[in-house]
């Protein structure tokens, strides 16, 4: 009994986290491709730098043209990626659901956002701030190498898709021109 009490005392001080919300966060993060290679212990470390945010329908997660400072993982709800149009409805690029992530380039630099993200319905998102993320990968090199490798692969994949789309578009335009 005394030993248990002593363990509980040290657990409180050194944050042996048994919080259900924390467990929930870890299980969501484990589904995200960016964190696919991480062990449970490493996911716990990543969860410690996460900010959980609630968004009402129609609220913006980030806006096109603003400097990017955080990457968002959707925990629940739906988020639309749009390009705002003056005087008309926004141009919808993609609609993302739970487990997907967006704004990952903000983890690399603070270049302006290329599109806006708007909550299509009440949503919960997990945000990772660039500076916290950089500190984490400096301190935990193993986590850093795994996450950055995944990020490079994802960006490479998206570049391939974009190239393919560009090539298809050129072919279509060429077809119409001829």
């Amino acid at each position, binding site marked *: 009994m005394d030993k248990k009490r002593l363990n509980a005392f040290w657990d409180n001080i050194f944050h042996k986290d048994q919080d259900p919300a924390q467990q929930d966060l870890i299980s969501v993060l484990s589904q995200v491709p960016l964190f696919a290679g991480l062990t449970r212990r490493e996911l716990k470390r990543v969860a410690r730098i996460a*900010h959980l945010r609630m968004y009402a329908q129609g609220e913006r997660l980030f806006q096109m043209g*603003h400097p990017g400072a955080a990457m968002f993982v959707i925990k629940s709800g739906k988020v639309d990626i749009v390009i705002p149009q003056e005087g008309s409805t926004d141009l919808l690029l993609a609609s993302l659901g739970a487990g997907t992530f967006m704004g990952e380039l903000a983890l690399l630099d603070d270049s302006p956002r290329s599109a806006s993200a708007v909550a299509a319905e009440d949503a919960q998102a997990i945000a990772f*701030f660039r500076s916290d993320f950089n500190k984490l990968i400096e301190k935990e090199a193993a986590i850093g190498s795994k996450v950055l490798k995944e990020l490079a692969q994802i960006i490479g994949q998206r570049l391939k898709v974009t190239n393919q789309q560009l090539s298809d578009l050129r072919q279509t335009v060429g077809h119409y021109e001829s």
Partner: protein
Amino acid sequence: MNLEYDALSRAKRRKLFFLISTFLGLAVFALLVWALRELILPAIVGALAAYLCHPLLARMRCYGVPKAAAILLLFTGFFLVISLVSGQIRDAIPDEQGKLELRVRIQFKLNEKYQQLMQVDDSGKGNLVYSLVGSEIEPFWQRINGWLILPPKERQQFEEYYRNRFGADRFDQKYYRYFLANIEQHKKNDALHTAEESVDQNTQVVTTEKKSETDANANGGLLAAIGGVISLWMAAPFVFLFLLLDEGQIKRSLVLLVPNRYFEMVLTVIHNVDDALGRYLRGTFLECTLVGFTLMVGLFVIGFGVKWAFIIGTLAGLANAIPFLGPGIGLLIGLIYGLVVEEYTPLFSFITADSMFIWVLVIVGMTQLLDNAVYQPVVLGNAVSLHPLVVIIGVMGGSILLGFTGMLFAIPVIVVLKVVIGTLIQQMKAYQII
């Protein structure tokens, strides 16, 4: 049910709720700060130490040291340094008798140096320096002697102590001879300035009597006061420990209060402020440590004992955090010690007791030169810089508001304000809020 109307009133209610709770929260916070104002300094010291130790903790974690072990190591180091420094300073503070002796020594040595410089004879005539500036310096000199001379009650105390301890041998004791010489000098001055002196002395006796009454009252509650100070300063290590244990929970809890619209902007502002302030505080700490260490080595070289070189170096290093005034404080402490020092072991034979004053000046000057030419550009190179006028007004304002504590913390507070306001405006523009 009119949904649109309901949503509108809900938004209004929400706004009102947030406004009232923010106002109440701020009021409670201000009340708490005022009620617990005595805890602020220990908490700031603990927080500052934790802030300075954070990069060390990160470095240790990089080398694979477990977090608990790294914190334990830093906590032990913090305790050891604090106990070592406070122990040395406590030992150096003289007791009641020691204070009387120190006053006698300072007065005697000052008069000795003055006599050496001016060479005033019994008829009241001196050398060329005296004939040139004597009339200006003499009243100032008399006033200093008036401050330093022991008042009748303390003279009696000093006399009794030496009589009880040494009996007839007291006349062979160096400090007792100084004491007699001071009284002799005082009498001589009396003869010259009888009228002025009698007024001064009466005032002094009254002041001293009042002071002793106050001292007696203060001594009555001394134990309670010491107990209070100890229990208040117990907060410092706890603040230090829990801030080191914190892994961003405090920041995350604060960021939860920020509306979504400003979320990224606030995080960026916090990061930039933390970065700039961290660089400034760590740079200043390193600069002060280097200044203190240089002074310590310099004073040791010119013959100060290790203990006194350590104490003066530490105090001067600490005071160096106050721009402009800090070096002056270091110089003053060094000069006072250089004045009263009688046992010294210089590493070079050409350093004598008579030239100690000049050597202290040389060492402090060299330290300041090194500080300005090497330490500051290297250590504080890219940290926040303030205009000298802002620094002077800030230090004076801090001193008026909170005394020495205000002087010490004025510049960090101005740095925080400058960085917060600058970054906030920059980020608000970037996020198109203004």
